């Protein structure tokens, strides 16, 4: 590039105006061992998931503190200012800690799943993110299954007949669908249609203490 500059200057006067627009291309440097090692650090799945977990924890902390600060005590008129302050502080602490834990776990699992899937597939795609999101959602709501199972046992304990379909007694929407799916996957073939319909009907119109039973 340095050799071509005087030629353009001497050839044509109008090309002098174009010269400042030529982008300065810097020489290519091979990465040194330190740079390569620094990049290798971020290729490690454990490091990435831990870092993502820490970031999620920080985010959860901030969010929990902010939302906890907005929480007003129940008996606001009877408390003094200092008591209200202490109450708010405790609320902020509790909420920030719990949401920090939740977000940290979520970030950890998501990042670990995405890293593992991408390394296995050896492709950079959105499929990695989708699978990682599915895994994260599944693990975060896997605990809900225990609730459903307990309710199932309590509700149908001591019954002679085998009740093929069941509905979560205290449903949140995702738990209900999870239970429905679980019942779908575990029932006999001939009652599958009824389970399907009953499950859909109940999960889409759930209320507290609503309880269906197939006769």
């Amino acid at each position, binding site marked *: 590039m340095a050799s071509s500059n005087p030629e353009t200057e001497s050839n044509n006067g109008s090309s002098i105006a174009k010269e400042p627009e030529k982008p300065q291309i810097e020489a290519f440097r091979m990465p040194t061992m330190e740079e390569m090692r620094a990049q290798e650090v971020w290729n490690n799945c454990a490091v990435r998931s831990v870092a993502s977990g820490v970031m999620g924890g920080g985010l959860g902390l901030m969010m929990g503190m902010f939302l906890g600060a907005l929480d007003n005590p129940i008996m606001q008129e009877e408390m003094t200012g200092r008591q209200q302050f202490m109450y708010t502080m405790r609320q902020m602490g509790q909420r920030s800690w719990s949401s920090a834990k939740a977000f940290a776990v979520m970030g950890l699992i998501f990042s670990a799943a995405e890293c593992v899937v991408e390394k296995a597939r*050896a492709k950079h795609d959105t499929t990695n993110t989708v699978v990682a999101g599915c895994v994260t959602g599944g693990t975060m709501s896997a605990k809900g299954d225990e609730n459903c199972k307990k309710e199932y046992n309590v509700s149908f304990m001591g019954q002679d007949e085998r009740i093929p379909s069941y509905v979560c007694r205290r449903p949140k929407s995702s738990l209900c669908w999870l239970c429905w799916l679980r019942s779908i996957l575990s029932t006999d073939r001939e009652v599958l249609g009824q389970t399907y319909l009953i499950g859909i009907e109940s999960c889409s119109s759930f209320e507290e203490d609503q309880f269906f039973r197939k006769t």
Partner: protein
Amino acid sequence: MAANNPTGVDKEQAFGMAETEMEYRVELFNRLAQTCFNKCVDKRYKESELNMGENSCIDRCVSKYWQVNSMIGQLLSAGGRPPM
């Protein structure tokens, strides 16, 4: 070859062999880099650094290429002609 100058002939022979070897190595490197780059890196460059997926793809590509190369080299060097 008539041994007029044994050491000189050996030196030239060694030189020629080294040159051939060097050409072979350079050709191998160039073809390896070209093949694995075309296979692993998507042409729509979205960022300047290699992703993790591309990294693992390149690792695997180089390993396989090397294995295949050494395997074929052994096959060709053992017998006079490749076993068919």
